[in-house]
């Protein structure tokens, strides 16, 4: 039983292969990490899985459905959500409304009910506002419930993005460098948050440079190099893989 199955995936940009011959699968309910040096194609892979890029070749299956080439908002319906390496916060909105956008699929997005504020719309909005507040508390943002996103510090915005992604109620959450730009104690807290999220039964897929975080939380690791799969397995398996040691850790590693 797999949640995500990637088969023979290729993506080229102007003739240069960013992802090549990639096949792997992810089982539900675990924390997976995708690691590799800069330019290995990690973010490209995320963008392919979440529908921001269309693959040049290959197929992606999610939850037994072929989702290849589907746009992101359709994938959100399937239960896929993500955060971004470069924060993509709606800075023109309040923190609460950022999370509320995550609930978009649960709310009534039709035009006329919104235009005339049907009672059902008002009721649902109120209900999801409460849920959003709870979600913000869950990620540790209880102090920012009434804040504008543009007035929040960087670390809080990272959490806000996770809260928004969780509001989509995903089966699988892809986190693109959740610890980047954070100090060690904040990183530690993110570590805890990721485990809490996984504890809710959400499958977490992680791209991360902070190896300490990777080793600490991952159940399963996929190593990419130049867009190809270099190795796959549990933490200890990957660590002892000679290819990985040679190609990646051998270069001095990124143990910050």
């Amino acid at each position, binding site marked *: 039983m797999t949640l995500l199955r990637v088969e023979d995936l290729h993506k080229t940009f102007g003739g240069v292969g960013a992802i090549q011959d990639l096949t792997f699968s992810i089982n539900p309910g675990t924390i997976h990490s995708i690691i590799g040096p800069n330019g290995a194609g990690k973010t490209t892979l995320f963008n392919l899985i*979440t*529908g*921001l890029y269309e693959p040049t070749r290959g197929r992606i299956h999610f939850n037994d459905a072929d989702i290849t080439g589907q*746009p*992101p*908002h359709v*994938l*959100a*319906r399937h239960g896929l*959500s*993500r955060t*971004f390496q470069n924060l*993509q*916060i*709606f*800075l*023109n*909105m309040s923190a609460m*409304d*950022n999370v*509320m*956008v*995550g609930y*978009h*699929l649960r*709310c*009534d*997005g*039709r*035009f006329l*009910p*919104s*235009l*005339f*504020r049907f009672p059902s*719309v008002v009721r649902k*909005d*109120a209900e999801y506002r409460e849920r959003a507040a709870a979600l913000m508390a869950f990620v540790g943002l209880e102090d920012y419930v009434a804040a504008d996103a543009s007035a929040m510090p960087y670390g809080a915005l990272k959490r806000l*993005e996770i809260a*928004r*992604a969780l*509001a*989509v109620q995903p089966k699988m959450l892809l986190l693109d460098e959740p610890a980047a730009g954070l100090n060690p104690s904040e990183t530690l807290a993110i570590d805890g948050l990721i485990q809490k999220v996984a504890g809710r039964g959400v499958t977490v897929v992680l791209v991360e440079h902070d190896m300490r975080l990777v080793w600490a939380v991952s159940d399963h690791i996929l190593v990419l190099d130049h867009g190809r799969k270099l190795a796959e397995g549990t933490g200890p398996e990957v660590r002892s893989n000679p290819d990985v040691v040679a190609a990646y850790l051998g270069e001095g590693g990124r143990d910050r």
Partner: protein
Amino acid sequence: MGFWQPRRAGILALAAVIAVLPAVLPNAFYYDVVILVGINAIVCVGLNLLIGYGGQISLGHAGFFGLGAYFSAVLTGTYDWPPLAALATGAVSVGVLSFIVARPILKLKGHYLAMGTLGMGIIISIALNQEVDITGGPDGMPVPAFAIAGWEPSSEQTWYWIVAALLMISVWLALNLIDSPVGRALRSVHGSEVAASVAGVDVTRYKILIFVVSAVMASFAGSLYAHYTGFITPDEASFFHSIEFVTMVVLGGMASTFGSLVGAAILTILPQLLTVLHDFEMLAFGAILMGTMIFMRKGLVPSLVDLAKRARP
């Protein structure tokens, strides 16, 4: 969610202004200016949904305004349709047209979108200018009076209440929309298209939706304008008129519905005030526009709100 949340307060303030104005306005000329403010404000409330909330610029909305005006003028004048039917036909046709052009045009971003909408508006305005047999050409055409089942609003006072009521409705609906799932989706598209789509928002759909809504509102206001003034020219659809609408929205403050009202009011009244400067009118207008935007770059209403917040910590 108290009763005195800002949007309720804003609507009440607007209602108060509308109720008090007739006691203040000394003659039909003042009514005329206020009616024009109201008609422009309806366009701006719609355009602000597109530009301020949806983050999609349009330099071509006067095209829709002009089309609405000409639909009303031609259908009632040349073909003797009842004004309401003409107005509705105009709004529906503009809705369909804007829906058709929205998909390709809204693929463009930023300045390219500005160019695309500008081109669309100019094409409409050229057609209105050139099709002399239908539109009367650059010298314009008369429009029969507005009438519903024999009732004709002839005085400025009557028009004032009609436009005021329609403006109130527009503002009310716009505020509803902004504070709703659709409004959040729109603002999220403005904030980050990728993040919005990942959160499940069908970005293209909402962009098209709000483009069509704003176009229909412009067409509606155009029809209203045509019947009110009784005479229209293709200038209503010109590029400069589009720029005027955008300037109203930006000057008043993007993503602020009441800002749009203030912007529409200022840009409609300002030329009347500046006549005192004679030859320096245009120069002063440009200077005021520049100065306001330099010193209040978020636009009047948001800047003043910020100022008030800072003054009262």
